[in-house]
C-alpha cells in the first residue's frame, strides 16, 4: 500500500514536472517542420526581436536567424532550469540551444536555453 502510494505520487509528480517542462504551445507557434540548433549568439536585435546564432560543422559555418516572439521561454541553465531570462539579457558569445520552426516569414523560435558562454578558460564543455 505504501509502495502504491509512493508510486502514485511519483507518477503524479513526473506528469506534473513533464507538463511544466513542456508547456502547451500557443496556437501561434509553429508545429512543423521544426528543428533545433546549438551555437553561439552572434547578434541580438532586441527591437526587431531577432537572434543570430552561428553554428555549423567544421569549416562549414552557418548563421541561423531566429525570430523570437515575446512569449518564447528563454531560460538559463546556469541559473537553474526554471529561471527565465529576457532577450535583452542574451549577449553575443553566449552558447544557446534553441528549438524553432519554419514559417513563411522565416525561422521562429519556440524555446531558447542559454547553456554557457564561449570563453577561453579551461572549463570543460558546457
Amino acid at each position, binding site marked *: 500500500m505504501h509502495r502504491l502510494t509512493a508510486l502514485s505520487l511519483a507518477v503524479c509528480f513526473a506528469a506534473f514536472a513533464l507538463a511544466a517542462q513542456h508547456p502547451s504551445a500557443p496556437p501561434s507557434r509553429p508545429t512543423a517542420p521544426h528543428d533545433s540548433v546549438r*551555437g553561439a549568439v552572434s547578434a541580438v*536585435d532586441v527591437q526587431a526581436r531577432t537572434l543570430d546564432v552561428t553554428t555549423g560543422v567544421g*569549416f*562549414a559555418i*552557418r548563421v541561423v536567424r531566429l525570430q523570437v516572439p515575446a512569449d518564447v521561454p528563454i531560460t538559463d541553465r546556469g541559473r537553474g532550469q526554471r529561471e527565465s531570462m529576457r532577450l535583452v539579457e542574451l549577449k553575443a558569445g553566449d552558447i544557446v540551444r534553441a528549438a524553432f520552426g519554419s514559417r513563411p516569414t522565416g525561422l521562429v523560435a519556440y524555446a531558447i536555453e542559454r547553456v554557457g558562454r564561449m570563453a*577561453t578558460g579551461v572549463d570543460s564543455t558546457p
Partner: protein
Amino acid sequence: MNRRRCFALVALCVVAACPRPPKPGDPLRGLSRDERERFDNGRAVFDSVFTPETGLGPLFNANGCAECHEDPVSGGTGDEVERHATAFHAVVPGGVRMCDELGALGGFVYQNHVTPALQAALGIDSEPVPAAATAVGRRTIPEIFGFGLLDAVPDSEILAYADPDDSDHDGISGRPNRFFDGRLGRFGRKALVPDLRDFNDGAFSAEQGVTTPAVPTEETVAGMPVPAGTDPAADPELSDAKAELATAFVRLLAPPAPLKLSREAQQGRDVFSRIGCARCHRPTLTTGDNPIAALRHKQVDAYTDLLLHDMGPDLGDICLALATPTEFRTEPLMGLHLKTKFLHDGRATTVEQAVELHGGEAAKARDVFSALAPGERAALVAFLKAL
C-alpha cells in the same frame, strides 16, 4: 663456423622481427581486420573524384579529398592555397561578437572554383569575398597523417597545458579555442574544429560542395543561395556511411615516422627544449581511452599543445571563433621532414625562415635561436628536419 652462422641467423631473425617504420599513407599498426577493411574502403571514398552530377559544387576548392591531400600519397599535402576571410572588430559594436566569421555571407571559406553551371548563371569564376571582410588569410594544405591520434587526445590533457592569463608569467599563455557550440577545438590552423568527423563533414561541404546528412545544405554564394538549376545532384550528395568511411581512413592513418636522428640532430633536440620551443611544441601527447586499440593510451610525438598562441602582427590574418587575428594553434611538427613550405600560408620555404618568422609569444625563443652559435643552430635545424 657453426657459431658464426648461428649468430648471423639470430641477427637476421632480430632484423626481420623489427617492424619497419610506417611509410606515409600506411595505416596504424595493430588494426583489427574490420578496422583495416574500413581503412581501405575509406581510402576509396577519400580518393573518389566528384563531378557536378555526383555532388561537386556549385562552389568548390577541389573535386575530391585527394586532389589536395595528394603528396606523396593520399593524406599528404598539396600545392593548393585556399582563401579564408573574416571580419574582426577589436572595438565591438553593441551586441555582436568581436569575430564575425561571415557565416551569413558565405564565409569563412571562399571557394576558388565554381562549376560550369554556376559560372554560366552568375558569370563568376570563384566566390567573391564580401566587402565586410577585414582580412583574407591564405591557407596551405596540411598533411593529415596521424591526425587520428590527435583526435584521441583527451580534452583534459590539452586544457592542462592552457594558461590563458599567463599566470606563471613566462610570457606564453596557450588559450583553448572553442567551436560555436562550446566544444574544445583542436583541428585547423586556428584550432576551430573539435574532432575529425566534424572536420571531414565540414570539408566535404566547404571544400568540395558535397552535402552530407551532417551538412545537408549547400554553401551560399557570398550569402546568396545558389541559383536554381546549378546544383543537379540531390541532397545529401554523400551518404553518412561514406562520410564515416572517409573519416575512418583519416583516423587510422599512421603518423609519419621521424628520420633516424644523427648525433647532430640529437644535440638539436636538447637545444629545442633548452631555448623554449617545447613550451608550445610539446613533444609528446598521450591519447585517452578509445574503442580502437591502436588509438588507445598511445604516446604521439606530435610537437604541439593544440592551443592558440599569439604569433605577432606580422603573421596575423583572420580571426576564428575565439582566436584573434594574431593567434594560431601550435602547428604539429610530426612529419616536418615531408614539408617543403612552412607556416599556415606557406610563406617560409625553409625551416630556418619559419623559425625566424615566429613572433609574439615565440619572439623570445626566436631571438635565442637567432643568437645561437652556428653549430647549435645547425643542430636544431637538423633535429627539426628529422621530425
